[in-house]
Every structure is written in C-alpha cells, then in structure tokens.
C-alpha cells in the first residue's frame, strides 16, 4: 500500500472511529444533551477547516473570508428548504438543499476567484476579507418573499415586497431566515466530513493536486513548466468554496434561524477557522479536523469556569500553539518521548 493511501485511510479511520465511539456512548445513554448539541457544530467547523486548509495549505493563498462562502451556502439552502418545506419530503429535500448550497457557494467562489486570484499574498488576504464582509452585508439587506405569483425581492423593507395574503417572507433583512427545518444530525455531518476529506485528499494526490502544489511552491517555475496557473488556482479555490458551502448547509439546517451577522459569518469567525487550520498544521488535513474538534469543544468544556473561561481558552490556545510548533519544544519533546510526536507535520509537497 502506498504511504499516501495509508495516511488517508488513517484519517478516515479516526473520523469513523470517533463516530462509532460517540454513537456507542449515545446509545448507552452516556452522552449528555450538552455534548449531543455540540456534535453537529463540530462537524461543520471541521468541514470548513478542511476547505480552508485546501486554500491555505495546498493552494498557498491566505483567505480570511471563507465564512462568506459558508454564509452563501447557508442562506441559499435554507431558502430552498423553507420554500419547499411542505412540498418535498425531508430526505430528497435535504439532498437537494446540499446540492444547491454547494453549487451556489462554488459559483460565488468562482466569481470572486476571478479578480481575487490575480493578487498575491497579503493583498489577496485583504480582498478575501472584503468579499467575505460584502457577502454578509448584502445578504443582510435582502428582503425576499414568495407568494402564488412568484418571488418578490426588495432591498428596502419587508412591507415593500407587496406580498399577497398567501405569501410568506423568506429572507427578512437583518432578521435573516427563521423557521427553516432542522434536518442536520451527527451522522449526516460525519458523512459530509468524510466526503470532503475524500475530495480534498484525492485532489492532493492527483495530477491536478501536484500542479496546484507546484504553483504554491513556485508559480513562475510552474508556469514555465507549462502549468496553467489561473486554471489550477481557480480549481482549488472553487472546490474550497464549495466545501465551505456544504458546511454552511449543515449550519443552517442545524439551527432554525440564520442571520447574516458578524457572530456567525464575520471575519472573526473566518479567523477562528484559520486558527483551526494553523494549529492543526497548514497543509495537514487531518490536523485541521482534530484541531477544529478540540478548539470548538474547549470553550464549551470550560463552562464550569464561568466568566474566566474565555481567558483560560486564550491561554490554552497560546500554550497549544507553542507546544505544537515551537522548534525548541518539538526538540525537547523528541528527546523526552523518543520519536513519537503528536503534532507531526506532514510534508505534502
């Protein structure tokens, strides 16, 4: 078996192992409702961390607006689900919601990629930040309603929609979408996570993946070797946006009210996801999943500390970062624990 294949199988194994363990605990009644409530958010943050790692670690472009794609995926799918809530049965509707969320996010990724990917480094990071904010703010200004005559749209207020009596307001400006069905569960979350891991890991090991990493390492050399830089950059960015969209679908179907506000889709959240990626190891897909799980659980597990928990959380974050990545500490760890290292950095290049 090839080294790479084995590595990938280990990643799937960890995810499936965690899933089986949690299911066992849940079925034997050992899982509190607090933990159960955390499971789905963990999966969607792990999914978006994988998406961002594709962009940051494999493509080598720093994006700090990825929650914008999550936002688009969340809104488009919740819109679809709310409109068709009564007309399509749950199973196929949720599947269609996923397809819609992913396609819309991918389309936005593609459109935004066109101007953004001409830039490099810091400039690109700043523009992605701006786009993330634009998506969020534009969505917060939309009023969309549906009645028997079709879809009504306004950017002023819900009363300007001029809905008939049978109509209902779907997106209500800053109030977002409320009352969309809650279909996400842990099993679906894990399936989505596995699919996105499968897509990303196979992409990395493919011809396209090698081209993308060649661009990351030296775009001039890659271009000189006949690699179509724009095409492969767009490919990685669009796939990354699509996966972020899938995490948005999980998000909006886990919670009944979606608002395009900063605490869910702002740059703070994008940076939080970036923290998952950096802490898990840039380019290390498995690390992203583990880091997202630990870092999302941590503040919730510290609830007993009351108002000190955010302080403790920050300190733990700093300590983890040092323990994982400081060369001195890594050296010390190697001396002390032999050759076993926990935060092993996988060289993907």
């Amino acid at each position, binding site marked *: 078996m090839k080294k790479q294949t084995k590595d990938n199988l*280990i990643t799937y*194994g960890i995810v499936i192992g965690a899933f089986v363990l949690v299911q066992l605990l849940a079925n034997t*009644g050992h899982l509190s409702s607090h933990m159960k409530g955390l499971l789905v958010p963990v999966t969607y943050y792990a999914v978006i961390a994988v998406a961002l790692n594709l962009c940051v670690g494999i493509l080598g472009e720093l994006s700090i607006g990825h929650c914008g794609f999550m936002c688009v995926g969340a809104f488009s799918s919740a819109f679809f689900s709310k409109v068709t809530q009564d007309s399509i049965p749950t199973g196929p509707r949720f599947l269609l919601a996923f397809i819609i969320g992913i396609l819309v996010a991918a389309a936005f990724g593609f459109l935004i990629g066109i101007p953004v990917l001409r830039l490099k480094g810091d400039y690109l990071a700043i523009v992605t930040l701006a786009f993330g904010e634009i998506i969020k703010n534009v969505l917060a200004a939309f009023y969309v309603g549906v009645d028997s005559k079709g879809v009504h749209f306004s950017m002023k207020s819900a009363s300007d929609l001029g809905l008939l009596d049978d109509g209902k307001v779907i997106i209500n400006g800053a109030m977002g979408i409320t009352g969309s069905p*809650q279909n996400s569960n842990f099993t679906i979350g894990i399936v989505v996570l596995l699919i996105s891991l499968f897509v990303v890991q196979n992409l990395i090991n493919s011809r396209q993946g090698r081209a993308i990493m060649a661009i990351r390492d030296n775009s001039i050399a890659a271009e000189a070797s006949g690699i179509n830089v724009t095409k492969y950059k767009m490919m990685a960015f669009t796939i990354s946006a699509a996966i972020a969209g899938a995490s948005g679908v999980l998000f909006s179907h886990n919670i009944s009210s979606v608002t395009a506000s900063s605490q869910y889709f702002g740059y703070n959240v994008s940076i939080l996801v970036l923290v998952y990626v950096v802490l898990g190891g840039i380019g290390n897909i498995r690390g992203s999943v583990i880091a997202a799980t630990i870092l999302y659980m941590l503040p919730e597990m510290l609830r007993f500390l009351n108002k000190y*928990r955010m302080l403790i959380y920050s300190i733990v974050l700093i300590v983890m970062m040092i323990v994982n990545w400081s060369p001195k500490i890594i050296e010390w760890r190697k001396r002390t624990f032999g050759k076993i290292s926990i935060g092993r950095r996988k060289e993907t290049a």
Partner: protein
Amino acid sequence: MKKFNKFVSAVLTSVMVASMVAGCADATSTGGGSAEGAGSDGAKVFKIGAIGPLTGGAAAYGNAVVNGAEIAVEEINAAGGINGYQIEYKKEDDECDAQKSVNAYNTLKDWGMQFLVGSTTSACSIAVSENTKADNMFQLTPSGSAVECVQYDNAFRVCFSDPSQGLASAQYIAEHKLATKIGIIYDSSDVYSTGVYQTFVDEAGRQGLEIVSSEAFTQDNNTDFTVQLQKAKDAGADLLFLPFYYKDASLVLTQASTMDYHPTIFGVDGLDGILTVENFDTSLAEGVMLLTPFAADATDDLTVNFVKKYQEKYGEVPNQFAADAYDAVYVIKAAIEKAGATPDQSVSDLCEALKGAMTQIEVAGLTSAKMTWDASGEPNKEPKAVVIKDGAYVSAD
C-alpha cells in the same frame, strides 16, 4: 521503523481524540446522573436557569438579565421559596450567538433545569425555543422581543414585542400630534431595530403621519451619524424616531446638537439607559421621549427596593433588561403557585401546568402594575411614555 512510528503516532492520535470525547462524556454523564437524582429525591428545589450574553459586545444586556433574575431568586428564597420549595438558580453564557445559546440551554438541561428565563436576545431566543419546544420545557424570555420568540405555546415573554412597540409609538405620536414630518434612523443589522421600524412605518401610514426620511446604519458603522442626520434635517423632519439602543442614540444626540439640529427625539425601550452613558452630556437628552416599561428612578416601593438591592450588589443602576428578568422570575413563581406545581413533576408536566396557569395569572411587577398573558405568549401591559426632564424620567401624560 518509520512505518512503526507512523503506526504508533496514529494510534496515539486516535487514543487522544477518543479519550477526549470519552472524558467529556464521563464528566457530563455524572452531571446528568446527579441531575436525575435531584429530580427524584429532591422534591426540594425548583431549578431555574437563565441564558444571556455574559461576555462580548452585548454583555451589558445579558449581565443585567442574569443579575436581575438572581436578585428575584434570592428574595423569593429568603421569603420561604415557592410553595415552600427553595429555588436553585444557574446562569450560562451564550456570547449573543444562537449556536452557543443552544449549547448553554443543553448545559442547563443536564444540570436539571425546569424553567428557563431566556434567552436575552431575540435571535438566541428563537433558536432556543426550537429546543424547548422539542423538550416541552417552560420558557419565559425576559427581553426577546422578536415576534418569533414566542411562536410556540411553551414560550412566553415579559417585554413588549417589536411590532407592539412600533405600533404604540406611531399611535402615541399621532394621538398627541407631536409632529407631522418624521425622520427615522434605524439599525438595519439589528433584528430588534428593524422589527420596530417596519411596524412603525406601516402604522404611521395608517395614522397619516408623513415619514420624510428613513436612513439606516449597521453595527459596523455606528460611530458617524452626520449623513443620516443631515438628510433628516434637509427633509425638514421635526421629530426623529430612534428605535435602537441607547449607546448609539447618545452619539446621534451629540452629533445632532453639533449640527444645530434640534428635533423632538422619540425612542423605544432600547433608549432606556441613555442617562447612564459615560461622558455623555445628559443635558442633550432633555426633552427626549421614550416608551419604556421601567424607569429606575420611579418612586414606588418595588422599584426603589429593587434599585437599591441591585446597586448594593452590582454597583450600577439597573436597566429594563434587569427589571424584565426580575419580573420573569416572579411571573414563574405566580404561575407555579397558581398551578400548584411541585418540583418532583417532570419538566414536561410542569410546562403543561404552567402553560395553563400563565393565562390566568395577573402579576404586578417592576415593568407594569398589571401584567396578564394570553395563550399566544404575548404580555398585555400598557407601555409608559416618559419624557426626560432635568436629567430624570417624568411621565409624559
């Protein structure tokens, strides 16, 4: 050797993850066990939980709610509890984030909560109501004012709903002929503000009020209001309707005064607290009218007592959020007494009992001398219009 190392590291990683999940599960499962214990052997206490943003930008509101509720709980316990049973009280932080609010709710559920006072903010309250509905737990939000907060029959609220505030404001302005040309500034990124704004505009149309300018801002650009103010001034608005929170409003007033623009200012309950803003020249707030259920300097015994206790304990003047939460705990007390409920009943039975009792009780609290509820969950109480005169609230009528 390399393969072996890889294997070892993989095993260790999975053990680490597994132990983490297992560790969490263990810790919380014991918590769950003790909660069950309290439910069965402890026909001793009622458990009330409160949720609000205790950290972050909206912390002022969440802290007011949990503090207000805490004072009420202490008072009731000191006076012998409800039907002779003491109350146990626990608060959880939601950071003004709907997902975290659901997490906080689940934490409280594991603790054994029987009644929920929360969530503090509308979006969180809506998200949590999906879960309380599923568990059939009695939910009374002190300050979740969006319509959907009480869409389920197990959810009630203490504050006015957004539409009722917009409606009442427009009717009040029309009835008292305060102005003919109205300018509005509202926060388009805020559910509360847009909710009030929409019904105000609708009702103003019916009341024959002319809205000459309506300008929006968001929480990302809430420091400079000169553009919005200039538009209102140019349009000749003689009354400015400000349906948002007092911190932003203090800036609006300051900037209006530097522009030499002095319209009548009319606000809703979010404006309550404007006199407490630091470095704000309160003389600018002279003549500001607002609809509020609570004024900290009212002279009735209940308010005086509450404000005194709150100041002693937390060192600040309580706002309407604290008052709503204080009332919420007393409302739960009244409903339990009416239903004759006991702590050994299941959460669902308690909810059913209280649902019925809520429509029959009549409570006198800080925010109204007489509050009643109907099955929709909306409170019936009169909004009070006050005007600020010499740095204090005076009844406007």
